[in-house]
């Protein structure tokens, strides 16, 4: 079983912890000749593939480097504009490396605070009174499991599809949080969690689960 990430959202809806686990960074490098046969979308923040996917380079992938020179937003590391470079015929053939886009910390914080009202809306949409919020959110590529404690902290685990209940894991993470975060005298409540002990214990827990499932959980 694969667990892609663990998020902890505080009572007030802020992301206080996130861990990316086991997400392989997929990169593809390929040589291109003039004219470029994939359509690129030039944004000020990144250059993405907009159309004409090619082998494993998919629509939505971002440009990482040109001839080994890293791309930084819309410019190359040496200061040249990506668009100008790729439109000039004399620069071809050119080696382009594409990768799956990676979320920045800001985007994660943004998404975490988006989840907060979604959770609240879900509980209000319910035809029955006293409904919980979202506990499970399924899509074709991942499943999101959410556990909210009585005090309002949300533990979120994003895993591969088709895994059964993650209650056990979420509870374990809660225990680790109670032990290694809240008992740390230098941690102040509601603040981002920067506790190395917690990180390492969580990592161990995830490793155990990925290798042997839930059976050997009570280490």
């Amino acid at each position, binding site marked *: 079983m694969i667990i892609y990430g663990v998020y902890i959202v505080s009572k007030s809806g802020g992301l206080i912890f996130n861990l990316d686990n086991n997400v392989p960074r997929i990169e593809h490098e390929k040589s291109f000749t003039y004219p470029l046969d994939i359509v690129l979308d030039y944004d000020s923040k990144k250059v993405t593939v907009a159309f004409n996917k090619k082998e494993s380079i998919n629509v939505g992938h971002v440009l990482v480097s040109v001839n080994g020179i890293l791309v930084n937003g819309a410019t190359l590391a040496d200061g040249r504009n990506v668009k100008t470079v790729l439109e000039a015929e004399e620069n071809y053939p050119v080696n382009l490396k594409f990768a799956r886009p990676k979320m920045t910390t800001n985007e994660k914080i943004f998404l975490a605070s988006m989840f907060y009202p979604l959770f609240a809306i879900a509980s209000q949409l319910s035809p029955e009174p006293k409904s919980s919020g979202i506990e499970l959110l399924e899509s074709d590529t991942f499943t999101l499991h959410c556990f909210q404690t009585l005090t309002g902290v949300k533990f979120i685990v994003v895993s591969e599809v088709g895994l059964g209940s993650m209650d056990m894991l979420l509870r374990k993470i*809660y225990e680790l949080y109670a032990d290694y975060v809240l008992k740390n005298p230098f941690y102040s409540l509601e603040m981002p969690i920067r506790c190395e002990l917690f990180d390492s214990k969580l990592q161990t827990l995830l490793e155990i689960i990925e290798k042997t499932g839930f059976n050997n959980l*009570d280490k």
Partner: protein
Amino acid sequence: MSRQTSRFDAKKVNAEFLTLTYGALVTQMLRDFENVEDVNKQLERIGYNMGMRLIEDFLARTQAPRCLEMRETADRIQQAFRIYLNVQPSISNWSPALDEFSLIFDSNPLTEFVELPQDLTNLRYSSIFSGCIRGALEMVQLEVQCWFAQDQLKGDNVTELRVKFIRRLEDAIPAGED
């Protein structure tokens, strides 16, 4: 008091160790503040901050559901004392409206070796308890008042901790829980 692994009974410490460290804390505070009322207040505040964190540990360990009546809350508090201090206070003296009860301690682990000097009769030695209960319950959206009605240190037969329900903190209840 704390656990090395996630198993319930993994790590135990000698109760005397806690008694003595707490005693050291109180004497140090008496030296620092001089004014007994200030010490009472500070102890209560320390307890409050401890309670806010301890509640998560309690919930993670016991997987207790939300309490919807005061009697359940009383049972949970009793259970917490058993887990964290290995004492079992009895619950009694319910008010007719069922919004107020007492926790009766035959013995109090914090005051095991303690005698109050004459000039400290105003000191509420164990007020860390009342702070702790208040802080913990506030995190699960219950506002309570908590005070000592009797204290063995002051010559009473038992130690009586009174807990009074004030209100549910409705706007603090997390979505999906109300």
